[in-house]
C-alpha cells in the first residue's frame, strides 16, 4: 500500500523577482490580495544604497554593496505599510524549527524564511557561495518534500526535509538559525502615497548625508580613489580581483542590472503613476542613464580582468567614470528630494 501525506498545499502564486527580499515580500503580500510589484517593495523599503567598506573583507577582498543590510527592506516595508509579521528564531533546535513550519503549513500559512545559498540543490553551481541571507517561501508539503517558492527561480521548486534543515542552519555570517516569518495582519486601507514618499526621502537622505565617506555618493567617490590606486598599490592580479569584486556586487543575481539602479528607475516610474507626480517619471529616465553608466563601468572592468597586465590606463578610465557617476547621482538625489517636498 502506498501512503500519501495529506498536508494541504496552498494555492500560492509565485512570481519571479530579481531580488529575493523584495520578491518574498511581494509574493507573500499577493497571497493576501495586496498587489505590490518588486520595484514598489524595493522603493518603499529604500532598497537603493551604496557602500564601499575596505575595513570589511570577504576572502581578503573589500566589501562593496549596492543595497542596505539584509532584512532592512523587509523591516521598512512593514513599518511604512503598517503590515505586521510574526518572526521566530530557533537557535539550536532544527527539529523545533521544522515542527513550527509544519504547523504553519497545516494551518495554511505561507511562511517566509532565511536560508543559506551554498547548499541549495536547485541553485546553479557557479552561484553557490556561502551567502546566508537568502529568502524563500515554503507553502506546502507533499510526500515528505516541501514546496518552495524561491523568488530567484522562474518556477516553484522543492526541497526534502534534510535539505531544508541544512539550508536553514547554514553557518557563518548572517547565519539564519532557523529564522522564519509570516504575515499576521494587513491593514484594511493603506496609504501608498505616503509610504512612497517616506521611502524616497530616506533613500535621498542616506545617499547624500551620512557623514562617513564609506556610504552614499561619498562612498562612490572614495571607491573611485581606491580603484585609481589599485594597480600601483596591489599589482595586476590583486587589482583586477578587487575591481572585479565591485562588478560582482553590482551585477550578481538579484540586482536587476546596474546595482539596482534600473529597478529603482522602474519604481520611480510606477510611483509617478500612483502619486500623479510627473517629475518622478522624468527622474526615472535620469536614473536609467545613471544605470547605463554603471554598466559602462562593468564593461571597462571586464576588459581589465581579461587583460590585467596592460590595464593601467583602464583603471584611470574606470576611476574617472566612477567620479562622473558620483556627480550625476548627487545631482539626481537632490532633484529627487526637491520633487517630493
Amino acid at each position, binding site marked *: 500500500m502506498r501512503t500519501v501525506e495529506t498536508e494541504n498545499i496552498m494555492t500560492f502564486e509565485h512570481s*519571479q*523577482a*530579481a531580488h529575493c527580499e523584495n520578491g518574498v515580500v511581494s509574493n507573500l503580500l499577493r497571497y493576501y490580495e495586496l498587489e505590490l510589484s518588486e*520595484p514598489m517593495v524595493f522603493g518603499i523599503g529604500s532598497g537603493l544604497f551604496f557602500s564601499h567598506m575596505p575595513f570589511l573583507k570577504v*576572502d581578503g577582498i573589500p566589501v562593496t554593496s549596492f543595497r542596505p543590510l539584509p532584512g532592512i527592506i523587509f523591516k521598512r516595508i512593514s513599518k511604512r505599510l503598517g503590515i505586521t509579521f510574526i518572526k521566530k528564531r530557533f537557535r539550536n533546535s532544527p527539529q523545533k524549527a521544522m515542527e513550527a513550519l509544519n504547523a504553519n503549513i497545516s494551518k495554511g500559512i505561507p511562511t517566509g524564511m532565511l536560508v543559506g545559498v*551554498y547548499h541549495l540543490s*536547485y*541553485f*546553479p*553551481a*557557479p*552561484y553557490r*557561495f*556561502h551567502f546566508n541571507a537568502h529568502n524563500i517561501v515554503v507553502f506546502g508539503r507533499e510526500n515528505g518534500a516541501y514546496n518552495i517558492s524561491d523568488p*530567484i*527561480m*522562474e518556477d516553484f521548486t522543492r526541497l526534502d526535509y534534510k535539505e531544508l534543515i541544512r539550508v536553514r542552519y547554514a*553557518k*557563518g555570517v548572517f*547565519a539564519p538559525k532557523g529564522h522564519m516569518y509570516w504575515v499576521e495582519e494587513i491593514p484594511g486601507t493603506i496609504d501608498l502615497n505616503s509610504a512612497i514618499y517616506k521611502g524616497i526621502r530616506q533613500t535621498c537622505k542616506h545617499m547624500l548625508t551620512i557623514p562617513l565617506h564609506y556610504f552614499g555618493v561619498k562612498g562612490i567617490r572614495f571607491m573611485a580613489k581606491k580603484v585609481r590606486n589599485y594597480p600601483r598599490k596591489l599589482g595586476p592580479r590583486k587589482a*583586477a*580581483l578587487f575591481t*572585479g*569584486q565591485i*562588478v*560582482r556586487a553590482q*551585477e550578481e*543575481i538579484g540586482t*536587476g*542590472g*546596474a546595482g539596482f539602479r*534600473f*529597478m529603482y*528607475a*522602474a519604481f520611480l*516610474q*510606477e510611483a509617478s503613476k500612483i502619486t500623479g507626480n510627473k517629475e518622478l517619471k522624468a527622474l*526615472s*529616465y535620469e536614473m*536609467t542613464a545613471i*544605470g*547605463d553608466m554603471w*554598466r559602462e563601468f*562593468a*564593461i571597462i*572592468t*571586464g576588459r581589465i*580582468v*581579461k587583460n590585467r597586465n596592460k590595464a593601467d590606463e583602464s583603471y584611470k578610465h574606470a576611476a574617472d567614470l566612477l567620479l562622473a557617476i558620483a556627480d550625476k547621482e548627487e545631482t539626481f538625489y537632490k532633484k529627487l528630494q526637491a520633487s517630493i517636498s
Partner: protein
Amino acid sequence: MKKNEVPQDDANMLQGKFREPVYSLDEDGNYTIVKSVGWDPKNTVMQQAWDNINEKVEETKEKVINGQLSPIAYYMEKNIMDIGLLSKYMGLWRWTVKKHLKPKHFSKLSDKRLTQYADIFNITPEQLTDINELK
C-alpha cells in the same frame, strides 16, 4: 538600457536552471522585465572569482599529496570555506580545526570526528581519508 539591448551572452553560469530578470525600457519608454541568460563582463568577473578559488584548491591539493596538509584542508578549500566557517559548522574552536589540518593530528582523529567532517563536505569518511581520491 533598452529592452532590445538586454544582453544574452550565455557562458553557462546559470546552467539552464533559470534566466535572470533585468529591468529595461520598452519602445514606449515603459519599464519592463526581460529575462537574460548572461552578460559578458559579468561572466568574466564570475569566472575570475572561480579561477581564484580553483587555484587555491589546486595549491592545497598539492600540499595534501605532498603530506604537508591533511585532506581536511583540501575539502575545506573546495567547499569555499575558511577555518572560521569550518569551525562553526563543526562546533569546535578554531585552533582545534587548525590542528586537524596537520597530517599528524589528522591520522589520530576518531571515526566519529571523521564522519562529522565528511558529512559537512558531503562525502563519505572513506573518501575523506583516502588521499588517492585527490590524485
